[in-house]
C-alpha cells in the first residue's frame, strides 16, 4: 500500500463511452443547489423510447468505437424507475450478446443515487443480478446538519419545517459499503455549506467511506468573502487529515499535487469537460451531448439537441464539442492565470451562463474558490511533505507515487 491514498481511477477511464439514460426527471428531493431547474413528475422514459435508443446505438457500432461502455442512469432519482432500468439492462445484455457487440465483455451499469431507495427489495434484487458490472455512488453530503442544509425532501414536515433526507440515506451506507467496499461519494459545496466542510469530510470517513469526491458548484452563487472562509475550512481539514493520519487510507479530492500550476497554451490545451464524447437520451428520445444540455438542466438557454432515436445523431452538432479546446473558450484572465491547473468547468454551465448561445465562453464564477483551494492545497502538501520527511517516508513516497490524469466530469 502507498503512503498516501489517492483517488481511484474510474473504470476504463478514457476508453469508455458514457451513455446516459435520463429515465426520469422526478426526484424525492428538492436539493437547494441542484442544477436541474426543470425537474418534474411527468417525464418518465417509456420502454419504447429506451428500446429505440438501445437499438439505434447498438446497430451503429461503427459510430461508437470506444473500447468500453458505461451505461449510466440518471434522474431525477434513477432508482425511482427501477423496473424500467432492470428491463433496459436485461435488454442491453441480451442484445450486446446477440449482436456479438464489442461492448459485450466490457460494459458497466453506473448510477448516482440519493440512496433513499437503496435498501428496497427491487433495487437490491437488481444489484445482486448485476453486481459484477455495477458501479453505484450514493450522494451523502457530510454531517446531518450539512446534508440537511441542502438535501431536503420536496414535501416539508407537517409543522412546515424542511424535511432533511440524511437519516434515510445514512441508514443505507453500511449495506452499500458492504456491497461496494471501495464506494466513493460525491459532495457538493455551495455558499451555505462552507462552514461544514471539515466536519463533513471527517464524518464521511467515519462512516467508512474512503474516497470523498468534492467540488464547488459552478454556478454563480458565491458571496463576498466565501473564498476566505473556504480556504480556512480546507486548511482546518488539511490539519485534521495530516494530524489524524487519514492520508494513508482516505482520499479527498480537494487535495491534489497536480493543481495550481500555470498551463502551457499548446501542450496543455485540452478541454476539461467530456460533453460531446458522451451521449444522453431523455424521455422524448432526444439525444444530447451531455445531460447538462437537456432542457431541464438549463436556466437561460434552449436545449442543445444533437439528434433523436429515430433519425440518429447529427454529427455537425457534435463538431463544436469535439473541437473545443481550453484556450479558445477561456478569457484572458484564465490564459494568464498562474494557478490554472485543476480549475474545472462544466460545458453546460458555460453555455447556460454565456452572453450568447455558445459553448465557447468559459464561466469564471468559480475563480476565487479555485484560488482559495490552491492556497489550501499548497498548505496541505507543504505540511504533509514535511511530516513525511521528518518520519523518513518522503523518499519512498516520491518513488512510488503514481501519475494522476485529469478526468472528465
Amino acid at each position, binding site marked *: 500500500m502507498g503512503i498516501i491514498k489517492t483517488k481511484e481511477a474510474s473504470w476504463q477511464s478514457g476508453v469508455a463511452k458514457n451513455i446516459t439514460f435520463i429515465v426520469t426527471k422526478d426526484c424525492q428531493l428538492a436539493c437547494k443547489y441542484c442544477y436541474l431547474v426543470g425537474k418534474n413528475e411527468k417525464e418518465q422514459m417509456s420502454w419504447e423510447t429506451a428500446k429505440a435508443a438501445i437499438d439505434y446505438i447498438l446497430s451503429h457500432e461503427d459510430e461508437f468505437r470506444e473500447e468500453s461502455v458505461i451505461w449510466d442512469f440518471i434522474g431525477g432519482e434513477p432508482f425511482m424507475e427501477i423496473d424500467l432500468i432492470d428491463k433496459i439492462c436485461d435488454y442491453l445484455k441480451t442484445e450486446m450478446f446477440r449482436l456479438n457487440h464489442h461492448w459485450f465483455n466490457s460494459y458497466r451499469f453506473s448510477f448516482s443515487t440519493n440512496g433513499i431507495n437503496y435498501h428496497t427489495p427491487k433495487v437490491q434484487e437488481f444489484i445482486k443480478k448485476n453486481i459484477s458490472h455495477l458501479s453505484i455512488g450514493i450522494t451523502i453530503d457530510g454531517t446531518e446538519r450539512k446534508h440537511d442544509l441542502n438535501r431536503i425532501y420536496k414535501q416539508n414536515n407537517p409543522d412546515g419545517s424542511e424535511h432533511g433526507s440524511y437519516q434515510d440515506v445514512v441508514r443505507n451506507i453500511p449495506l452499500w459499503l458492504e456491497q461496494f467496499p471501495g464506494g466513493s461519494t460525491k459532495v457538493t459545496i455551495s455558499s451555505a455549506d462552507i462552514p461544514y466542510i471539515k466536519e463533513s469530510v471527517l464524518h464521511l470517513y467515519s462512516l467508512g467511506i474512503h474516497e470523498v469526491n468534492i467540488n464547488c458548484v459552478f454556478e454563480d452563487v458565491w458571496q463576498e468573502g466565501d473564498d476566505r472562509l473556504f480556504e480556512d475550512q480546507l486548511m482546518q481539514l488539511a490539519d485534521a487529515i495530516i494530524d489524524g493520519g487519514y492520508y494513508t487510507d482516505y482520499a479527498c479530492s480537494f487535495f491534489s499535487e497536480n493543481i495550481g500550476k500555470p498551463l502551457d497554451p499548446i501542450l496543455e490545451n485540452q478541454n476539461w469537460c467530456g460533453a460531446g464524447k458522451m451521449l444522453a437520451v431523455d424521455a422524448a428520445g432526444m439525444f444530447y451531448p451531455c445531460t447538462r444540455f437537456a432542457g431541464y438542466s438549463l436556466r437561460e438557454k434552449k436545449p*442543445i439537441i444533437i439528434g433523436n432515436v429515430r433519425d440518429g445523431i447529427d454529427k455537425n452538432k457534435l*463538431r463544436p464539442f469535439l473541437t473545443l479546446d481550453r484556450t479558445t473558450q477561456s478569457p484572458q484572465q484564465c490564459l494568464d492565470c498562474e494557478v490554472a491547473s485543476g480549475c474545472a468547468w462544466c460545458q453546460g454551465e458555460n453555455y447556460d451562463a*454565456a452572453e450568447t448561445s455558445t459553448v465557447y465562453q468559459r464561466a469564471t464564477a468559480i475563480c476565487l474558490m479555485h484560488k482559495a483551494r490552491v492556497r489550501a492545497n499548497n498548505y496541505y502538501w507543504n505540511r504533509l511533505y514535511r511530516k513525511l520527511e521528518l518520519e523518513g517516508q518522503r523518499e519512498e513516497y516520491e518513488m512510488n507515487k503514481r501519475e494522476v490524469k485529469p478526468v472528465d466530469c
Partner: protein
Amino acid sequence: MLQYLVILLDDTSTSYCHYGVNKKERKLISLDHLRQGIRLGMVENLMIQFVYPDYNLPQEYLDVIDTIDHSNIKPMAALDNDTDIVTIDGWSYDASKLKDAVVALLTSWKQLNENHGKLKDLLAVVQRLNVVITDVERMSDSDREQYKVVLETLCKDVEALYVDGKSPQLNLLTDRMMLSAMNNCNAGDTTVTLAPNGKLYICPAFYYENEDDCVGDVVNGLDIKNKQLYRLDYAPICRKCDAWQCRRCIWINRKTTLEVNTPSHEQCVAAHLDRNASRDLMLSLRSKGTFLPDKEEIKEITYLDPFEIATQWK
C-alpha cells in the same frame, strides 16, 4: 477590425451570397437611417457596399448614397454602368450584357450540375465570376460526386481560357491559386450589415432569418457579444485549414453546428473539393509553362474535412 459596412437599401435587396431573401414587400431604408449608416462608415473608416433591390431608387436616395465612396451590388434587373457586382439568381441571363462585369451567380447543387456547361462562355466575357451555392449545407453524397465532375470540367474550361491568353477569375478554382493566406467572408469581424430597419446585423442572412438577432443599431453603434468568436484564430477547425478560398460562412456555421466558429462537414468538403481542383489546375498550367511563380504549390492532402484531423492539432 471592422473594415466594411454592407447597407441593405430595401427589404427586397438582392442576395449576393448563400442566404435567400424571404421578404417580398418593398421597404426602403429610411433616409435618416441611410444617412446615419453613411456617417458610421465615415467615422469608422469603413468601406460601404450598397445592396440594391430590382427597382429604381428615388433620386433623393441616390443623392445621399453619392456622399461617400462606395461600391454597388445590384441584381441583373437593375444592372447599369454604376454596378460593381451584379447578382444573377439562377441561370437565365444575357451574357452579352455582362462584358467585364463582376458577377455573383447563385445556384443550387442541382442547377449547377445541370447548367455548368454554360459557364465557359460566361467566363470568357466577365471580369470575374463568383459561383455561390445556395444549398451548400445540404450536399448529398451524389451532389459531392457530381460536383467533382463539374469541377473537372470547369478546370478544363479555365485552362483553355488561360491557354488562349485570357485571365479568367472563377472563385471556385482560381482564388485558391492566387492566395497566400485565409481570405474568408469575415462577417462579424471585418464586416457588418445595416438593414432597412436601422439595426446592425452580422450579415444580411442574420437579418432575413430573425430580425431580433441584431448586434446594435446605427444610433447606439455596434454591440457584438463574444466578438472574438468571429475571428479566424477562434475557429479551431478553420485556423489550421488551408482551403484559403473558403467562404467560411458563419451563418451556415451557426445554422448547421449551432456555433459561429465551427463549419459543417458539408461546407468543409465543398471547400476542399474546390481546393483540390485548384491544385490540379495549377499543376496543369505549370506543366505548360511558368505560372504564378511566386506562389507555393498547393499540397496534396488526404482528407476532405479537416475535422477528421482536428484532434491531431490539439
